[in-house]
């Protein structure tokens, strides 16, 4: 099970279906995520992008279909194997999810301490370099409760990449960042990808930033992949749905509303429940 075999795709998703209660989040989704590239997953809020990352990480189980990472079916691994697979993955959670009982420094050092036998001064160097990369070397002694939202997410990013994992999944890395930090993060993600040849998966709503770094984009909506291709291809795509999303138009086939009951009807049912 080597991460370095040379097949085209590193993550192979076949016939994936998943539901939450009675709501179908994915219906027969197929995706191939290319090795060593930056892949973006985009789509309206609530389509299941975070859910997809959790399926890939083996935290959720699909109803049907399979997800293979380097040829290994994630959901057939034993608990032990799954945990050792995850050592080679990094994930930035949408909420940051820092350990609140540890300082910024210890948060970033944590994955290194548990998975390697490196001496303390070497760990210190790595942690400081990662914190420097996200511009927070000076915040190393703060506790997570003392950070702003944007800072906490950058610390979480530093933690996600501290072991230089072969696959990094970023759930909305740009959210809550000022324009300068966004620019820095774009460069950082590109650098991690190019310098180390690692695979990156980005979930994001920031069209500008995403278009500028992604090699490949999947557009999800309503349980399906509605389009996929390079940024240039997607920009040229003249399907209504794709145009609407890429240009951020409020009206069009992609539903903005969670459920499509008629608003007027919903308002009136209050008065006459039996209508």
């Amino acid at each position, binding site marked *: 099970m080597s991460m370095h075999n040379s097949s085209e795709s590193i993550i192979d998703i076949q016939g994936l279906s998943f539901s939450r209660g009675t709501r179908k989040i994915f219906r027969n989704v197929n995706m191939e995520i290319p090795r060593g590239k930056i892949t973006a997953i985009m789509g309206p809020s609530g389509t299941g992008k975070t859910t997809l990352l959790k399926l890939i990480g083996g935290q959720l189980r699909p109803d049907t279909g399979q997800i293979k990472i380097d040829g290994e079916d994630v959901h057939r691994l034993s608990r032990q194997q799954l945990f050792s*697979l*995850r050592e080679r993955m990094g994930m930035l959670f949408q909420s940051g999810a820092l350990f609140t009982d540890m300082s910024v420094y210890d948060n970033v050092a944590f994955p290194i301490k548990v998975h390697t036998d490196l001496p303390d001064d070497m760990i210190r160097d790595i942690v400081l370099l990662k914190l420097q990369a996200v511009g927070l070397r000076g915040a190393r002694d703060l506790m997570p409760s003392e950070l702003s939202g944007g800072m906490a997410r950058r610390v979480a990013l530093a933690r996600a990449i501290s072991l230089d994992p072969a696959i990094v999944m970023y759930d909305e890395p740009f959210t809550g960042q000022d324009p300068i930090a966004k620019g820095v993060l774009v460069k950082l993600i590109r650098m991690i990808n190019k310098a180390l040849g690692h695979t990156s998966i980005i979930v994001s709503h920031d069209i500008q930033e995403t278009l500028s770094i992604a090699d490949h984009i999947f557009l999800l909506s309503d349980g399906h992949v509605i389009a996929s291709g390079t940024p240039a291809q997607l920009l040229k795509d003249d399907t209504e749905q794709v145009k609407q999303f890429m240009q951020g138009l409020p009206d069009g086939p992609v539903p903005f509303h969670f459920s499509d009951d008629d608003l007027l009807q919903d308002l009136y049912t209050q008065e006459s429940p039996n209508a």
Partner: protein
Amino acid sequence: MLDQIATLGRSTLDRLASAGRSGQMLWQSLVAAPTPVVMFPLLLKQIYFIGVLSLVIIIVSGLFIGMVLGLQGYTILVDYGSEQAVGQMVALTLVRELAPVVTALLFAGRAGSALTAEIGLMKATEQLSSLEMIGVDPLRRIVAPRLWAGFISMPILAVIFAMVGIFGGALISIEWLGIFEGSFWANMQNSVDFSGDVLNGVIKAFVFGVVVTWIAVFQGYDCVPTSEGISQATTRTVVYSSLAVLGLDFVLTALMFGDI
């Protein structure tokens, strides 16, 4: 009618499923406890939070309960002219019953609720998920040290409770009620049996410790990760633990002392 049967069936199934999950959690975290090097500092920290920080409430409660026992025992025994036996009464009541039971109830309220809330909040803020994605099993890292710390702390706390309680009883009987010191202690020594009383009391305390900690940790680990879910889980910890302790106390007492 059919609806009620269906509801009953569903809630029974839910309960069975949750009992199954709790057993699975207990098993997985005990077999998968981290290596001693990793475990030891984590365990010490938890023993501090669960055990050491419970000392104040245990000592204060033990002292007052011992003093009350001394007073009550004296007023009853003095009618029969056998007030010299108050030492024996205080010690036996504490060692056999009150120390394990009251300690467990206090432990559920003080440490159990804190465990549930802490783990529940870790779940709600995705700290458990992010541990998993870092490749660290939360059952090993978070659950196992807390379970062991509870198992270890509870019997020690109960022993401390009993000792402080006996001290409180002595204080009242000897200093205040004027019982002769020698007969107070001698009576106690003659009647309290090490394996029959002390050991059984410690066994009770250990069993309660296992049950309370297990319930507390499981409720946190299995809670609905919202503020409401955490508050309900915390309440359940205290209610279920208290009921389990009182019920088990009857069973254990019947087994240990029933044939007298």
